C-alpha cells in the first residue's frame, strides 16, 4: 500500500449531475441505510437511461442477424437520405483503433469484413427520434455471405477447425501440475458436468449519453463498472488523448460483470463527435442480450481419487469454457476455473487443464463468481459422488478434507488466514432443518407448483444437499491492483463535512454507503457526502472480483488517515499540544484523556484539508507453466445447504430453505451484507434451476425476460445465515469481499438436494423439469439412500 498525491484537474461538466446527497452514516460495523435505497424504491433515482440533454439525438445500432458471415458490402445511402437522420457510421468512420477489448483488443468497434456472432455491431445511426433511428437501420443494406457457425467449443479446439481469429481458437490454456503425477487411489469416481450460459440480467439495459464539449473532446455519462478502463479504450478508438474523454458515472441498475466490457460507449461518442450534438443510446432488453457478455458455458470432466478412509489423493480435471466470439475477460475466467478447480480442499495431487476457446457463440466474460461458479458445481458433485462411493456422510467427507491456513493450494500458494472451511461446514450442519410436514394436506403455496394446482402432495419428495465454494478477491496474476480516493474535510453550513471522491462504480452493492461509513469512522464527523464518481480523480479499478470495499474502501480509509494526520497537526499547533496525543471524535479534537481541545469547525475555519491517495494491495504473481505461483490476494468462502421439495411427476421444484454460512472478515454494514448474501443466493438459485440463454447454432433463442426465466420473490425461500468474522490481518478492518461467494456455493447445494430427492445424476445445470420428471416410471438405477444426499455412483474401488 502506498500514498501519493495524484489529483486530476476537472473541466466544467457539459451536463450538471444530481447533487451528491449529504448523509449521516453510522460507523463501520453498524447498520446504515443506503442513501440511494429510498429514491430507487420510489422511482425517483436517475438511471442512465433517464438522462437527456437539449438538442439530443438518439443513437441506434445495426447488428448482424448471422452468427458467422463475411460482409461483402455495406450501403448506407438510403438510410442517410431519410429525413431526421443526422449520421450513419460504419467501420470507416472509427477515428482510431478499430478494435477494443479489456485484455486483448480483438473486437471490432464496427465489423468490417467478418461477423463472428449474432448481434455483432455493424453500423450506427443518429436521428432526432428513436423510431426514426430504428427505421433507418432497416434502410442500411448489408450484403452477407453466410457461413457455417463454429458453435461447439470442443470442435473449435480441433486441429482442422476453421480459425476464427488469426491467433487460433484456443484463447488460453492453463495447466496445473501439483504433487505426484501418477497417483494411485483406493476409490476413484469420475463425472462429466456442464453449466449453461447465464445472463447477468441486470436492471437497466445498457445506456448512456455522450455530449461533445465543442473543443474536440467528449463527456460520456454512463452506467459502467470501471470508468477508467472504459475511458482508455474510448480514447484509443476515438483517437483522442485521455484528458479529452471524460466519463461520469450515471445511475446503474446492476452489473454482475455484464457492464465490464464496452457496449455502446464508443458508438455514442462517435455519433456525438460526428454530429456535434448530444447522443443518447438506450438498448431495450432484447438488444441487451446481444449487447453484453455472459457467463461462460462450461464442460468439465473430473476424476477424484481417495483413500478408503476418505482422504483425497488426487483430482484430475479437464475444463473447457466457451468464450464465444471475442476475448473479453475470458483469460481471467480460464485462470480462475483452473485455480479453484479442486475446491476448498487439501488436495495432495492435482492435474488440471483449463481451456477457453473462441466460437461463433455470444461472447462471454465476467459474471459474479467467474470461473469459480462453474467448477464448484463439478467438484462439489464429485465430493457427493465420492461420499456415496465410500458410504460416508458428504459433509463429514468435506470436513475431513477441508482446506486450512498453511496448506498449499494446487497452485502452490499457501492458504492464508483466515480459511475456516471446516467451521463453515460444521456451523452449517448445526443449523436447524425446516420441519417436514406430510406433503398431503399442505397449503398449496408450500408445494411445488404453488397455487397452479399441480399437486396436492402426491409424488412430492424432499431432498437436502450441501455445497461449499471459494474464490479470489481482487485482481490477480501480477496485476498492479489499486484504487484512488480523494477526501476533503471542510466546514459547510456551520458543521464539519467530509467529501469523498472516487471513481468507484456503485452498482447496487452499497459501496457509496460503506465509503461514507469509513469516512465517519476515521474522521469522527457525522456528515458525509460521497461525490459523483468520475474520471476527474484517479482509477478505482473495477467493481468486480468482490474487490471494491477492500480496494476503494482501503483507499478512502488511507485518505482519511492522511487528512486526520494533517488535522491533528493543525490542531496541535493551534492548541500547543502534541498531535500524537490527539484524536478526532464527534466533530471535535480530543486529548488522550478524552478532554475536548477544539471543535473541528474552529480548527478548519475556511481552510479545508484535502488528500488524494492510491491504495495498492500486495503484489501477486503470474502462474508459471505448471500453474504454480502466488497469484491471488485473498480468498473468500461460503457454504450453502438447500432443502427442496420435488414434484417428481411434473418435475417442478419448490426450494423450501437455503441456509448459508459465510466468512466475511468484518461485516462492514450488516444490512448490506445480508442483501449481498440474499442476492448472490438468488442468482445461484437461478443458475441451478432456471436461468439459461438458449443458444443453438450460434443463435440466441430466448432474448427476453418472457423466455429467459429469472427467479422471482415467489421462488426464493427464506435464507438462514450465519456470518463468521475472522479478520484478515492484512485487509482494511479485516474485511473480505462478500459479493461473489454466495453465488458459488448455492448451485451445487441445490443440485445435491435434487439428487437426494430424485436419485438422478443431474450432471448439468440449470436442472430442467425433464431431468427430474418421471421417477416413478423410470426409477434411477439405485434409489437414493436415506441421508445419502448424493447421486448414484459407480465408483471404481481397488480390490
Amino acid at each position, binding site marked *: 500500500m502506498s500514498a501519493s498525491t*495524484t489529483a*486530476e*484537474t476537472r473541466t466544467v461538466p457539459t451536463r450538471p449531475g444530481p447533487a451528491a446527497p449529504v448523509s449521516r452514516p453510522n460507523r463501520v460495523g453498524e447498520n446504515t441505510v443506503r442513501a440511494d435505497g429510498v429514491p430507487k424504491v420510489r422511482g425517483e433515482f436517475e438511471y442512465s437511461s433517464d438522462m437527456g440533454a437539449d438538442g439530443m439525438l438518439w443513437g441506434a445500432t445495426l447488428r448482424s442477424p448471422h452468427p458467422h458471415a463475411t460482409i461483402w458490402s455495406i450501403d448506407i445511402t438510403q438510410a442517410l437520405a431519410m429525413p431526421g437522420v443526422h449520421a450513419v457510421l460504419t*467501420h470507416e468512420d*472509427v477515428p482510431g*483503433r*478499430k*478494435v477494443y477489448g*479489456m*485484455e*486483448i*483488443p*480483438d473486437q*471490432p468497434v464496427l465489423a*468490417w*469484413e*467478418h461477423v463472428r456472432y449474432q448481434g455483432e455491431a455493424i453500423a450506427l445511426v443518429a436521428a432526432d427520434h428513436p423510431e426514426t433511428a430504428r427505421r433507418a437501420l432497416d434502410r442500411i443494406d448489408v450484403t452477407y455471405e453466410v457461413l457455417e457457425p463454429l458453435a461447439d467449443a470442443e470442435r473449435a479446439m480441433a486441429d482442422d477447425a476453421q*480459425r476464427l*481469429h*488469426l*491467433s*487460433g481458437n484456443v484463447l488460453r490454456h492453463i495447466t496445473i501440475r501439483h504433487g505426484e503425477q501418477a497417483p494411485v487411489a483406493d476409490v476413484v469416481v469420475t463425472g462429466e458436468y456442464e453449466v449453461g450460459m447465464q445472463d447477468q440480467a441486470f436492471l437497466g439495459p445498457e445506456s448512456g449519453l455522450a455530449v461533445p464539449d465543442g473543443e474536440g473532446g467528449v463527456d460520456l455519462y454512463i452506467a459502467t463498472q*470501471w470508468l*477508467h*478502463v472504459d475511458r*482508455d479504450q474510448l480514447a484509443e478508438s476515438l483517437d483522442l*488523448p*485521455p*484528458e479529452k474523454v471524460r466519463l461520469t458515472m450515471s445511475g446503474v441498475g446492476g452489473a454482475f460483470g455484464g457492464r*465490464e466490457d464496452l457496449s455502446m460507449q464508443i458508438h455514442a461518442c462517435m455519433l456525438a463527435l460526428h454530429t456535434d450534438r448530444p447522443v443518447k443510446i438506450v438498448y431495450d432488453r432484447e438488444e441487451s442480450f446481444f449487447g453484453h457478455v455472459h457467463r461462460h458455458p462450461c464442460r468439465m470432466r473430473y476424476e477424484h481419487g481417495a483413500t478408503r478412509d476418505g482422504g483425497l489423493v488426487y483430482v484430475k480435471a479437464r475444463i473447457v469454457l466457451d468464450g464465444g466470439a471475442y476475448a*473479453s*475477460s475470458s*483469460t*481471467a475466467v480460464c485462470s480462475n476455473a483452473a485455480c479453484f478447480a479442486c475446491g476448498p480442499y487439501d488436495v495432495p495431487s492435482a492435474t488440471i487443464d483449463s481451456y477457453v476457446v473462441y466460437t461463433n457463440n455470444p461472447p462471454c*466474460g*465476467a459474471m459474479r463468481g*467467474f470461473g469459480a461458479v462453474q467448477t464448484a458445481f463439478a467438484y462439489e458433485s464429485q465430493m457427493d459422488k465420492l461420499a456415496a462411493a465410500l458410504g460416508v456422510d458428504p459433509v463429514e467427507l468435506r470436513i475431513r478434507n477441508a482446506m486450512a491456513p498453511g496448506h498449499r493450494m494446487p497452485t502452490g500458494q499457501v492458504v492464508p488466514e483466515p480459511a475456516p472451511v471446516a467451521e463453515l461446514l460444521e456451523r452449517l450442519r448445526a443449523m436447524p432443518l425446516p420441519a417436514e410436514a406430510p406433503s398431503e394436506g399442505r397449503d398449496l403455496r408450500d408445494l411445488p407448483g404453488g397455487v397452479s394446482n399441480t399437486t396436492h402432495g402426491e409424488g412430492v419428495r424432499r431432498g437436502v444437499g450441501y455445497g461449499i465454494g471459494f474464490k479470489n478477491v481482487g*485482481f*490477480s*496474476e*501480477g*496485476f*498492479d*491492483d489499486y484504487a484512488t480516493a480523494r477526501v476533503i474535510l471542510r466546514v459547510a453550513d456551520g458543521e464539519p463535512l467530509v467529501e469523498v471522491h472516487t471513481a468507484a462504480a456503485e452498482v447496487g452493492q452499497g459501496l457509496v454507503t460503506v465509503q461514507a461509513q469509513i469516512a465517519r469512522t476515521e474522521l469522527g464527523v457525522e456528515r458525509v457526502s460521497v461525490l459523483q464518481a468520475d*474520471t476527474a480523480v*484517479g*482509477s478505482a479499478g*473495477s467493481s*468486480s*472480483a468482490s*474487490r471494491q470495499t477492500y480496494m476503494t474502501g482501503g483507499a478512502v480509509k488511507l485518505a482519511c488517515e492522511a487528512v486526520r494526520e494533517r488535522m491533528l497537526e493543525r490542531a496541535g499547533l493551534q492548541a500547543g499540544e502534541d498531535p500524537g496525543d490527539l484524536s478526532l471524535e464527534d466533530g471535535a479534537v480530543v486529548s488522550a484523556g478524552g478532554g475536548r481541545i477544539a471543535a473541528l469547525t474552529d480548527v478548519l475555519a475556511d481552510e479545508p484539508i484535502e488528500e488524494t491517495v492510491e491504495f495498492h494491495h500486495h503484489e501477486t504473481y503470474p502462474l508459471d507453466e505448471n500453474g504454480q505461483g502466488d497469484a491471488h490476494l485473498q480468498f473468500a468462502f461460503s457454504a450453502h445447504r438447500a432443502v427442496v421439495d420435488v414434484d417428481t411427476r411434473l418435475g417442478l421444484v419448490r426450494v423450501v430453505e437455503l441456509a448459508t454460512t459465510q466468512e466475511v472478515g468484518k461485516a462492514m454494514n450488516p444490512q448490506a451484507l445480508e442483501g449481498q448474501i440474499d442476492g448472490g443466493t438468488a442468482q445461484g438459485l437461478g443458475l441451478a434451476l432456471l436461468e439459461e440463454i438458449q443458444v443453438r447454432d450460434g443463435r440466441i433463442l430466448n432474448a427476453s425476460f418472457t423466455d429467459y426465466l429469472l427467479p422471482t420473490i415467489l421462488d426464493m425461500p427464506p435464507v438462514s445465515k450465519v456470518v463468521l468474522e475472522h479478520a484478515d490481518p492484512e485487509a482494511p478492518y479485516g474485511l473480505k469481499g462478500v459479493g461473489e461467494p454466495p453465488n458459488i456455493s448455492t448451485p451445487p447445494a441445490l443440485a445435491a438436494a435434487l439428487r437426494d430427492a430424485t436419485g438422478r445424476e443431474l450432471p448439468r445445470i440449470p436442472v430442467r423439469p425433464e431431468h427430474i420428471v418421471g421417477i416413478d416410471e423410470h426409477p434411477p438405477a439405485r434409489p437414493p439412500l436415506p441421508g445419502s444426499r448424493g447421486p448414484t455412483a459407480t465408483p471404481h474401488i481397488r480390490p
Partner: protein
Amino acid sequence: MPGYNRAEVSAELTVVPSWEGKQSPRAQAEAARRAASESGLAHESGPGRTVLSGGRTEVLEALRKVIEASLDAGAHIVQVKVEAEGDAQRFQKS
C-alpha cells in the same frame, strides 16, 4: 474481473498492396495474414491491418517474419507502428 493488463509490446502492421507485385494484391495481404497467424500472437485490427501482441522478443521476431512474407509476396510498403504498453501507462493522470 479482468485486469487491464495489456501485452508488453503491440505492433500494428498495415500492408499496402502493390499492383506490380509478384502476386495479386489480395495474395499479398493474405501472405501477411498467414505469417501473422502462424505466430499465434495476431489479431485483426482493421481492414488490411493486423496487430501482433505479446512479449517484446517474440513480437519483434514475428514482426520480421510477417514483413518478409509480405515483401516476398510482392508488397512494396508495410507500415508498422510499435507500442510498448505497460499497464502503468494506461492510467496516466490528466
